[in-house]
């Protein structure tokens, strides 16, 4: 009887050691998991502090004649050296009357394909699913639920600056309603 108790005691002491070791492993795993999760979330966490958007120059306003819509390109503000061409982003600049501008994202508001401007019919058309927009970026027809994404702009020393740096997507625009001034 006494012997069985001792065996049981021995067993439970061993089992306790197993449990303590498992607990220790759990603690270490949690300590390791935190930095790993932080590493994985870096594309999101980064946004909080400086944000991705910056004011970028599209060049002299003289490049964009009044009453016309022209293609412009800019270099993404936070490129990596191995980004290659992908850090160059295109956008459409509409000079309404010489002093007022509209700068549209190249991405269709439906699924992000590059829209093309047709000055003859004053329409933007999308090659993917046939979305069309009027010259002021409002939706004309097709699957998009909304008009083209617009960058906020300002003019300084004759140069056109836009606030850009993040790919405009339908979800992002929806979340920003009533928030930031930027539409994109």
């Amino acid at each position, binding site marked *: 009887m006494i012997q069985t108790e001792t065996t049981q005691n021995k067993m439970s002491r061993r089992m306790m050691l197993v449990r303590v070791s498992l607990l220790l492993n759990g603690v270490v795993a949690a300590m390791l998991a935190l930095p790993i999760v932080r590493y994985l979330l870096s594309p999101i966490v980064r946004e909080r502090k400086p944000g991705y958007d910056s004011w970028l120059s599209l060049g002299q306003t003289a490049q964009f004649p009044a009453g016309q819509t022209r293609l412009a390109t800019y270099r993404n503000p936070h490129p*990596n050296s191995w980004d*290659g061409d992908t850090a160059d982003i295109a956008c459409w600049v509409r000079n309404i009357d010489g002093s007022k501008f509209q700068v549209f994202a190249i991405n269709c508001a439906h699924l992000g394909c590059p829209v093309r401007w047709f000055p003859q019919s004053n329409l933007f058309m999308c090659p993917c699913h046939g979305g069309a927009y009027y010259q002021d970026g409002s939706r004309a027809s097709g699957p998009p639920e909304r008009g083209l994404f617009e960058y906020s702009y300002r003019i300084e020393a004759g140069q056109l600056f836009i606030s850009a740096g993040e790919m405009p997507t339908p979800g992002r625009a929806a979340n920003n309603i009533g928030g930031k001034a930027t539409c994109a």
Partner: protein
Amino acid sequence: MRMIYAIGDWLDQRLQIGGAIRETMGHRVPRESASWFYVFGSGALTILGLQVVTGILLALIYVPSAGEAWNSLQTLNHSIALGWFIRALHGWGSNFMIAVVLIHMVEVFLFGAYKFPRELTWIVGVFLLLMTLGMAFTGQVLRFDQDAYWGLGIGASITSRVPIIGPWAVKLLLGGPIIAGATLSRFFALHVFVIPGLLLTFVGLHLLMVLKLGINEWPMPGRIVRRATYLQEYQELTSKHGEPFVPYAVWKDLLFAAFILLSIAVCAVYFGPFGPGGQPDPTIIQTSPKPDFFFLWLYALLSFLPPSAETPILLIGPAIGIIVLLALPFVAGEGEKSWRRRPIAVLSILLIAVALGTLTHLGEYTPWSPLMNAWSSEPIPPQYLQGLTSLERQGALVFQAKQCHNCHSLDEKGGQRGPALDRVALRLTGDQLVRQVIQGGGNMPAYGKNLSPAETYALVAFLQTLHPSNQRPARDASHPLVLGASEVSPR
């Protein structure tokens, strides 16, 4: 020979797997299951082997960097001896993989192989299907060209629509705020490490269960699966009417493996590698991005969903589809296996096949997309211009210059986004044409601000000539009453 046996014995003394291998080879399968219908699972395994080997070979050259990937693909295609062939094998292997996996799945479904006790084998198979599609999508991204770039844009746009967390999920997907270097690197990690690791593990489980539970017996109408009796019945079947897997069944698997590898090689030699297409420079916007063949149905579906239903269907649809597949063996885990007694199963397969086939076919020629160059490259057919007044010819000019041709076809040339206009004068009167042009509607932009009254007038005059000569154009019957009988009816 004796030497080989000696080495074999020496190894087996240490590894101790000879018994397991002999058991696996000799395990008894139902005689009717050694059928040509049962070769698709092993066919998929064969292609997986090919994909692993060719994938490693490609990784010897490929550079997973947004700036260099496209160049390294060009090098593979043109500068490395037979680099094009390895790329073609990998690309065609992927197409064959999707096809064989789908056939395997349909066959398992129609033969009732997902029923008790093979529910978990089916569930693991569903995850294998998802991983296969995941490999196809990430692989398409690694072929880093224009289609890959804008395909990622489509992926990001869909992801962004997830409520609340959408924009964050986009940044996780892209590895940053835009599609760039970090994006390609993480898709490389997914395609080469994460998904293959899971895939091989799940394939192992899948195979283990096939061995432990036995291959599905040939479904006989009237032979009902019951949880209480099935295992015993299967045991009897295999012991009384079973045959050892080797050589009774295996030769068909082997022959099919050789056939499928040969088919892939023939396609690779004859058709060559896929792309890469234009370089992934987002400032080159003269592009019509399109997904690879197996995602064309989705691409087509996205153009037909009404805008308001699109987001819910996109986000909830796949979840429902996966839940249905996972629930299948629990809902229908017992009962009839033979497709001859399961009309709803057969009809479901037919319905899905017809739907996917139709959408894929539509995705091939994208009737919903404007033909971006039609206005400048497709002239109006001469027979439509003969005998027209100068006003009507001016209207034809407006038709071309204002890109109407991009969406409307004449004589089957031009866009198919809008209706063909060859007989439009039969459908719409002059007044209705004016209204349609100015106000748009029915998925047509309003041209009111973009056309001068004179241009509209000329355009409508031209459109009113578009009817067969033996049929009178549409007219408004109230016109003579309101305007007097002197009103001349249009040509």
